[in-house]
């Protein structure tokens, strides 16, 4: 029973000088539980008792200040800590971190370098140095530091930062390399998986993209970015219902996402529910009025709905935001053709051809218009231009062309050579009525009284129909095609980056 005597002697000395670290454990436990109020109470008590000498209490107080957004105050407290124990790298690290958060990257680098002198094997110092250099745009140094950090200890965060540098430098391949290594190291990190998936998508390696996005979704079925990207891939394959089911999750989590409503709209478009499509796209447009892709899709759907006046407005708005895209001008031309303004339509086509050097569709549509206007020479020139582009595309890639486009091209070719409208009107009717949407079926019914004028109308509406093709891809979706056929010659390559970039910008 030595208990009591010892206890009393202990309390006697304790009154003289309390142990500084007496309640550090309690401060820490409250801190990691995020119970900051209780934590602050203990810190206050502890600092009073020790007359401000308890370093850890100051340290945690500074951490809490920083979490609460009082970065300047946290910086001052960390500096106090650094004075209390100058040999501790941790304090310097926190000083640097606060400097970094205040945007003083150069000062942060200096302090980190000092901390690195005290502790050479800390990945965190190297990592944060790297991040500071990124903000200073010194990518070489940043890479060096991040690689150092990886060398000391591998962390997902370091991989992400390295990948970001490569993306900032525009080096997709290197970024993919880094993310591949990262996924190998940490196969369940959904952020890494999603980013890698999106990068593959951007490069058009769909199999791998889908694989990684799918993995991300298995680990986190509510991952916003992965769902959007995977959904858009499903849409290009025509799985609109599956994509819509996936989108429901996002619609619940992020109900105000413009790309989401754009994609949902294009799903409905693919399912031929045009009114729903327009509703969704208009919501997307409301949420992001300056996004030309949404305007593009709106124009497209309105073209399909034969609302050419509205289509014209949306397309011209899209052109205002994105004046460098040939397909937009082509769609505008189609709208103008239908609004009986061939002069402006021709100018739009000319602009489209000037901007778009490899899409044969532009030339074909233009040729049809010229032919219908009776300008056979011009039509022939455009036709030949189109053939050139087709050959070029065939040489460079094994893409198959849309059957309808080929069909139309053949008919136009025949018409141009023979010079008789009658020769190609008949087969047109057959192919048309099979799977044309509202716009064309109406035109087909008009075709009954044969004559050159009707034939012209026919050709025009078919041109309108073709107009849809690239955008189907460009926007988000496509209609009625089996998923195995890679249909669109050029747009496919361009369409998906749109998708991906839309997602990436969301970050």
């Amino acid at each position, binding site marked *: 029973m030595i208990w009591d005597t010892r206890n009393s002697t202990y309390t006697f*000395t304790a009154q003289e000088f309390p142990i500084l*670290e*007496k309640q550090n454990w309690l401060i820490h436990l409250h801190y990691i539980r995020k119970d900051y109020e209780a934590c602050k*109470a203990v810190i206050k008590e502890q600092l009073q008792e020790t007359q401000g000498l308890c370093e850890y209490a100051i340290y945690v107080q500074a951490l809490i200040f920083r979490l609460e957004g009082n970065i300047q105050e946290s910086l001052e407290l960390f500096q106090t800590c650094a004075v209390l124990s100058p040999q501790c790298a941790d304090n310097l690290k926190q000083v640097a971190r606060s400097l970094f958060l205040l945007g003083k990257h150069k000062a942060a680098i200096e302090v980190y370098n000092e901390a690195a002198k005290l502790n050479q094997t800390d990945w965190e110092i190297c990592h944060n140095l790297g991040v500071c250099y990124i903000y200073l745009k010194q990518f070489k140094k940043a890479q060096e530091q991040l690689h150092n950090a990886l060398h000391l200890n591998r962390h997902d965060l370091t991989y992400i930062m390295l990948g970001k540098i490569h993306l900032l430098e525009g080096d997709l391949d290197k970024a993919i390399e880094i993310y591949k290594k990262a996924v190998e190291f940490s196969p369940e990190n959904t952020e890494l998986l999603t980013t890698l998936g999106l990068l593959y998508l951007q490069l058009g390696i769909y199999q791998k993209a889908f694989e990684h996005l799918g993995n991300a979704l298995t680990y*986190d079925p509510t991952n916003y970015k992965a769902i959007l990207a995977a959904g858009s891939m499903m849409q290009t394959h025509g799985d609109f219902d599956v994509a819509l089911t996936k989108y429901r999750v996002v619609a619940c989590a992020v109900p105000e996402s413009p790309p989401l409503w754009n994609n949902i709209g294009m799903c409905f478009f693919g399912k031929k529910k045009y009114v729903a499509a327009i509703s*969704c796209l208009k919501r997307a447009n409301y949420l992001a009025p300056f996004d030309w892709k949404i305007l593009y899709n709106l124009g497209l759907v309105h073209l399909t709905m034969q*609302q050419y006046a509205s289509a014209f407005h949306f397309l011209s708005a899209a052109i205002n935001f994105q004046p460098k895209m040939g397909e937009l001008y082509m769609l505008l031309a189609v709208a103008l053709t239908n*609004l009986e303004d061939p002069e402006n339509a021709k100018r739009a086509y000319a602009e489209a051809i000037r901007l778009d050097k490899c899409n044969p569709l532009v030339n074909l549509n233009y040729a049809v218009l010229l032919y219908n206007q009776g300008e056979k020479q011009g039509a022939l020139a455009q036709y030949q231009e189109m053939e050139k582009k087709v050959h070029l595309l065939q040489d460079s890639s094994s893409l198959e062309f849309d059957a309808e486009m080929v069909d139309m091209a053949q008919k136009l070719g025949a018409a141009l050579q023979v010079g008789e409208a009658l020769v190609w009107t008949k087969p047109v009717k057959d192919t048309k009525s099979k799977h044309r949407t509202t716009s064309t079926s109406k035109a087909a019914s008009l075709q009954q009284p044969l004559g050159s004028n009707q034939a012209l109308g026919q050709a025009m509406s078919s041109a309108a129909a073709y107009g849809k093709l690239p955008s189907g891809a460009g926007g988000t979706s496509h209609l009625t095609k089996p998923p195995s056929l890679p249909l669109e010659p050029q747009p496919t390559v361009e369409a998906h980056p749109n998708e991906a970039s839309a997602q990436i910008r969301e970050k």
Partner: protein
Amino acid sequence: MAAASSSDSDCGRAESAQLFPSSPSNEASSKWLDAHYDPVANIHTFSSCLALADLHGDGEYKLVVGDLGPGGQHPRLKVLKGPTVLTESPLPALPAAAATFLMEQHEPRTPALALASGPCVYVYKNLRPYFKFSLPQLPPNPLEQDLWNQAKEDRIDPLTLKEMLEGIREKAEVPLSVQSLRFLQLELREMEAFVSQHKSKSIKRQTVITTMTTLKKNLADEDAVSCLVLGTENKELLVLDPEAFIILAKMSLPSVPVFLDVSGQFDVEFRLAAACRNGNIYILRRDSKRPKYCIELSAQPVGLVRVHKVLVVGSTQDSLHGFTHKGKKLWTVQMPAAILTMNLLEQHSRGLQAVMAGLANGEVRIYRDKTLLNVIRTPDAVTSLCFGRYGREDNTLIMTTRGGGLIIKILKRTAVFVEGGGEAGPPPAQALKLNVPRKTRLYVDQTLREREAGTAMHRTFQTDLYLLRLRTARAYVQALESSLNPVSVTAREPLKLHAVDWRDSDGYGTRKKTVCFSNCGQPGG
């Protein structure tokens, strides 16, 4: 069902919590019996300060709580039997950890209770104070000692003493004592008095216990003699002999330990995992004075539990991570809310080991590896929990809440934890219908009208647009001619005139308003 069969009358609030209309809670209520719920039990503690043991050797297991008291003001040792507090005694300082362990082989084999608090471990037997172990004093810095010795003999004046001590603080490996640190803070005029008052004392450095656990001495049996393992503020781990209370082994860590987990036997082979304040987990083995492996979390650990051979760590990033005993990452599970506390659930009868995690959203989740077995919803966030034999019931879950409440649940004997007992399959949001905006009759009519007269609309619109532009231009020219145009005050902020046309609801330009406004304050350039 379980809510209805609950045996206690106090658990009204627990019942209502069980009736949440989601499937996991229904599932949970079928596995657990609500034995007791007291929202005002006034227990504020951590999982490390809870222990279950047969303290009197009568086969009736008691709950030992090292209670911090409300606001950490009145630390008490409480022993509960069933729902009632059996004994309650005040403690000299806040308890950091509580553990029960067998000290010797003699019959009756009643376990002793150890309570770590400040620099001491208080050992109780039969709930009576038995022994107090104090951490040994840390060796003072020899230079500092030397300086104070000189001061004692008045060979050094306070100012030089201060300078010298500051020099030591800047460089030395061994930190200064509290006495010296206090001295350094003093004003010049106070120094003399301070030195004369304290110079005769030997300088002391004392550290405190931050965490404690037990480690079997030489047998793996359930009721084998165990050593105490202490983690201290000066980054050391100590293993104490259970009988003599001498330090058997000392290991040092790079940071202050917060949570400990030990497996094996001290005399044979053991593995010690220590989660530290720098966010790292160090793994040590017998005969290793320094850590053998290191796990870097990049966040603070909030709990450390070993399930079979897997180390499960909860982090402040709201996730559970599984690691091998060599520190290789196995899996990660994301939690819906911050983790407050963690502990081991061990159901001996079925050989089940799982991790329980108390979350800030009032859930307690039970995981086996990364599969969710069960979710218990509680009326308040659970801040400490433990599972084991209580009273005469084998599988009892004891939880205390943030508000000081106590919840006791009993696992039904028929209950089997199966995978997918918690949430599985697609997220619930997937079943919700999409909120697609509806279109009105007016819209449909307008659409039809546009189809019929699209060209006319377009032309009207274009004509009107031209007219509008013309009118605007005319008005502008007129304003310029009659010198009515607004003039910018400074050259750096030129005025801009904008003409904007508003289309009305149908958007086809059938009706138009002209709005012309000037935009000032645009930065130049």
